[in-house]
């Protein structure tokens, strides 16, 4: 489902002394089936923008059109908003705000029950979603309170609740913050699978530039509520000056390559291929050892 944002501005506490412009004239398009990443320093407006995608916030001015549904204040009716929330699953930045049911099972089942699915289907969905976030599905665990969990486990339950709705668009606000490696990998695999099999559209807010470089087809960088940069990761992360001007840093691999060049080290020719350890290692090894190849990398004559 595509997302189109046209001249969107959002002002918190409009008219009050604490009035705050959080988004200013933002326009962007996320085509159907694409994974978009939203990046920016804290307070740049990422969460504010994301909350427009399922109508949690309504534009102060401008338009947001999700899968043809208009999220503009004037045209929004309750049944319209309900349909929007069915289509777009939103993971909040603070998962505590999303958890409410007495048990983990009820919490994850809440969405599917709203869809009036049969009990059996709801149960399947709950199991599937908990598996997708690498959490157990035994009776003991299902009966626990979602608040009797560690921080990372709570985020995973909240994400399971969103996934269980099987929406065609997923907007995830910092889904991997505080997660361990196992949870991250399971979730990436699940998202990959949803994209490949169902053409799900993904919007991810993240501070982890390596993750962004990895997952996203397109990046949107916000600064001070304005859209400053957009494009595919390989392209965006090459524009170092603009990235820095947004208060951000390129991913560590890109920083390393840039720093190595600054220090006059030969790190291989610049290429358009994404920077990965697998691609970079042979190039680095060759450039360190190539001139002295006859001595081998250990300094011994071969």
């Amino acid at each position, binding site marked *: 489902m595509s997302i189109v944002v046209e001249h969107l501005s959002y002002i918190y506490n409009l008219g009050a002394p604490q009035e705050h412009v959080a988004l200013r004239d933002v326009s962007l398009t996320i085509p159907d089936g694409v994974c978009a990443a939203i990046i920016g320093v*804290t307070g740049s407006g990422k969460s504010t923008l994301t909350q427009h995608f399922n109508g949690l916030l309504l534009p102060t001015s401008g338009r947001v059109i999700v899968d043809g549904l208009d999220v503009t204040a004037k045209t929004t009716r309750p049944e319209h908003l309900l349909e929007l929330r069915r289509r777009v699953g939103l993971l909040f930045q603070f998962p505590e705000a999303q958890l409410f049911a007495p048990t983990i099972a009820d919490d994850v089942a809440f969405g599917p029950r709203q869809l009036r699915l049969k009990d059996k289907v709801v149960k399947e969905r709950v199991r599937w979603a908990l598996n997708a976030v690498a959490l157990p599905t035994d009776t*003991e665990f299902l009966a626990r309170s979602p608040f*009797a969990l560690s921080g990372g486990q709570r985020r995973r339950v909240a994400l399971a609740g969103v996934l269980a709705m099987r929406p065609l668009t997923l907007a995830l606000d910092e889904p991997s913050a505080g997660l*361990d*490696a*196992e949870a991250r990998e399971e979730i990436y695999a699940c998202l990959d699978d949803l994209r490949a099999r169902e053409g799900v559209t993904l919007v991810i807010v993240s501070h982890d530039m390596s993750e962004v470089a990895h997952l996203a087809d397109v990046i949107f960088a916000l600064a001070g509520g304005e859209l400053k940069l957009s494009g595919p990761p390989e392209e965006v992360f090459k524009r170092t000056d603009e990235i820095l001007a947004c208060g951000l840093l390129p991913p*560590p691999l890109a920083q390393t390559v840039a720093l190595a060049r600054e220090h006059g080290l030969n790190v291989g020719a610049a290429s358009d291929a994404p920077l*990965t350890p697998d691609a970079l290692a042979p190039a*680095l090894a060759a450039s360190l050892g190539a001139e002295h190849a006859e001595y081998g990398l250990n300094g011994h004559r071969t």
Partner: protein
Amino acid sequence: MTTQPPLVAQSIGAPEHAPTLGEVALHLENVVYRYPSITNAPTSLLAAKIAPALAGVTLDVRRGEYVALLGHNGSGKSTLARLLNALLLPTSGHVYVLGHNTADRSEHRAIRDLVGMIFSDPDNQIVATIVEDDVAWGLAARGYPLAQVHARAEAAINAVGLSAHKRRAPNELSGGQRQRLAIAGVLALEPVCLIADEPTALLDPQARVEMLGLLHTLNRERGLTIIHVTHLLEEAALADRIVILERGRIVREGTPTEVFADLESLRSLKLIIPELGVLGERLRALGVDIPPDALTPQLFVAALERLEGHYRQTQHGGAQ
């Protein structure tokens, strides 16, 4: 009354530069913690079967030490953190903070002043509408004389680099600045130890670097003992000691160089291996000797430069 913990007790993994460190600040002795009524199931039989959040942790942290605490989700990091400032009391075993036993309720006030805590989301800790007042609040609530409240608040605000913002409203600050504000609130109470539970989880990359810098400055320059809970090996790389939990037990302890030497075992503990760690692994497989703890761009490039110099020398030597 307080019982002194054995001050001679020293864990195996104490950092090499132990001479610069002071007495034992935090002492945990075979600590078990089990959360009460964990399940909504009707029988409490189920609850008894659930493994405890901490299953026998023994640990000493010396004054001035910087300890990074890592482990998978649910491994017990936050539980351990909460036991250290008496927010939780051990089910069995003992926790001492500079000789104060946390089981002794009359010591809780002293303990909470000695051990300050910050979390990922600073907003829960911010109480006032002006930065200065927020920092002063904890002191005022403890009944310090006004002059001292102001002086200490001012010093704490300077220490975290917020002096330019002291008259602003906390909600006008960036996430990183709000996190600094939370630290200032803790520093004002002049603690011995700061426990930072995933302080950078919600920060952007630059704010993350700055926060890490601040924690290290407070450690090096003020001798503040730091327990830094994190999922990121690159943040742990600068600690004196790394402690890794798995299912409520300490399974690995040592300096970053020692711990990072075996990245494969860290993978099996569900820790995130940073891309530079993976790059280092690949290079080592190709015969290039990058040290496993070169996990930041700066450290990595420094290692590359050393190697380059080494290869150049080898070449000159060979050519003669």
